[in-house]
């Protein structure tokens, strides 16, 4: 049965009240495809133990950190069961290694990890891996544990999952990148590869893998890749971003309204620049200066020219400087308005001539 059919059947059974059967189907599904976010979400509702619910929700959250309902539900559960509030579980029941209840009761994290390391040192890899999986279900924040799992993963799928957790905890892990580089992913692992490169902030490579994941045979992978791509593509652009200097910003913001004012003067002068009244020419310059000052105070307050202005006795008060800039802007507008009104008052409209 394909993953989606399996999922649909499980959902139907869950809705029909056959919770046990639905749970078994979903467990089979997540074992086959640990990347199925919705399966983890449904599983979180169907498993009876709160700890298992938390595990399922954490897995769902890892796969899709942007679904707010998952985070809300997880927070609720952690508040309800504070003893389980430490991030407990991740999906390391891979390969069917279910942890023994005794191993979960071990409280001394460091001691337990030392014992597991010892198992690997004695070349008891199978036992070590099983114990490590159990350990990581309990202490999912344990970076060294995940690093050990990366080194001793028995399959590429497990390696990818371990790397994902390791990079989530420490995206700058000195040796993780080498492992990621060596992976030759299958069609179904492109999404995970995209996530790994995203965690490593290798945006262009992440984009490449997410684009491949868009053609993945797994529906959930395609959806997640589609969701992540815009963000990662934006990061690619951000990495190449060109910054605008504050001086250029101030100049740009002053030019726009000055153009408007100049156009108005142009109209006032009968569309003939030679007829422009000298006072309006001066007011245009004052308007531009006022805008430069006003924008400068807002967007480049540390500019050396502004420092020089502030050194003068009158403008040591910032409010005075701001008011001065406003006056430089508003007075030319007032002057132009008065000029237009004066001309309007002097004008005698003869309707008979016009109509």
């Amino acid at each position, binding site marked *: 049965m394909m993953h989606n059919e399996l999922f649909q059947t499980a959902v139907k059974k869950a809705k029909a009240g056959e919770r046990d059967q639905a749970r078994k189907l979903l467990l089979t599904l997540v074992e086959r495809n640990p990347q199925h976010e919705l399966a983890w979400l449904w599983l979180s509702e169907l498993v009876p133990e709160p700890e298992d619910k938390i595990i399922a929700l954490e897995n769902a959250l890892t796969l899709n950190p942007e679904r707010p309902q998952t985070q809300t539900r997880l927070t609720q559960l952690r508040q309800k069961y504070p003893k389980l509030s430490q991030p407990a579980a991740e999906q390391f029941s891979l390969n069917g290694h279910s942890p023994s209840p005794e191993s979960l009761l071990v409280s001394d994290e460091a001691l337990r990890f030392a014992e597991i390391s010892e198992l690997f040192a004695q070349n008891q890899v199978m036992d070590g891996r099983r114990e490590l999986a159990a350990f990581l279900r309990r202490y999912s924040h344990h970076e060294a544990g995940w690093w050990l799992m990366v080194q001793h993963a028995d399959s590429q799928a497990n390696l990818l999952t371990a790397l994902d957790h390791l990079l989530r905890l420490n995206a700058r892990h000195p040796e993780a990148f080498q492992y990621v580089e060596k992976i030759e992913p299958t069609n179904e692992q492109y999404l995970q590869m995209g996530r790994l490169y995203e965690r490593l902030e290798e945006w262009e490579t992440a984009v490449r893998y997410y684009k491949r994941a868009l053609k993945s045979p797994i529906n959930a992978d395609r959806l997640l890749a589609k969701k992540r791509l815009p963000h990662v593509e934006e990061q690619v*652009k951000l990495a190449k*971003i060109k910054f605008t200097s504050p001086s250029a910003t101030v100049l740009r913001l002053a030019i*726009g309204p000055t153009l408007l004012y100049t156009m*108005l003067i142009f109209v006032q002068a009968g569309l003939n620049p030679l007829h422009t009244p000298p006072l309006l020419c001066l007011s245009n310059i004052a308007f531009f200066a006022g805008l430069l000052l006003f924008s400068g105070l807002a967007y480049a307050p540390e500019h050396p020219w502004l420092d020089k202005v502030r050194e003068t006795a009158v403008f040591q008060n910032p409010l005075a400087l701001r008011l001065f800039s406003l006056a430089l802007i508003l007075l030319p507008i007032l002057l132009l308005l008065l000029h237009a009104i004066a001309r309007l008052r002097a004008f005698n409209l003869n309707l008979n001539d016009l109509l």
Partner: protein
Amino acid sequence: MIPLTDLQPNRYTSFPIMTLTLIVVNMLVLVLQFLLLEFNIDGYIELIYLFGSVPTFVISQQAAGALASITSTFLHGGMLHLVGNMLALWAFAQRVEDACGPWRFLAFYLFCGVVADIISTMSRSTEAIPGIGASGAVYGIMAAYLILYPRGRIKMMIFYGFGFWRVPFRAYWVILFFFLTEIPNALGVLLINDVESSVAHWAHLGGFFAGTLIFLFLRPDAFHRFRNELPL
């Protein structure tokens, strides 16, 4: 074909205060025009001639000059004229205002209106017919929208017979449609001296070209994103 609304959300602000203010002011001015038309027809004609843009007055430096250039964008020839302009303004201005901020948006709107008026005055410099309407400024806003959000989605109302459809279109189709239909009309005015036309096609084109200077009015962050081809 009438634009109804923009289907995409704003980035910086939730409420296009200046766009709404402009729409309300335009509506109030039309109400004033209707009142004058009803009770004082001479006053109405005076209003249109003194505060509309009359090319012969502008060229001979008579009447309100620059003031009329601004006020003419707030006068309209009737309800349909106003509704058409204001619907287009509502559809395209929301996100342009969002990218500029309200005051810079106002300056940009007026700038487009004034440039549209200048081009219109130049194209019919011997006429004594007042030019009124916000369409020059609205065309400027449309040009700005095309530059900033070419792939934006605009809901359009398309009439057929006695009914209409409401269909979303990509902004570039809508704006290019409006722009390209203006070109033959504007050329007609210029080459055939088609003075009977009651539509200021050159004002539309002038406003549209003025709208390409939108980058001078963008808020710093929006300009930064625009310059780096990030989504606005």
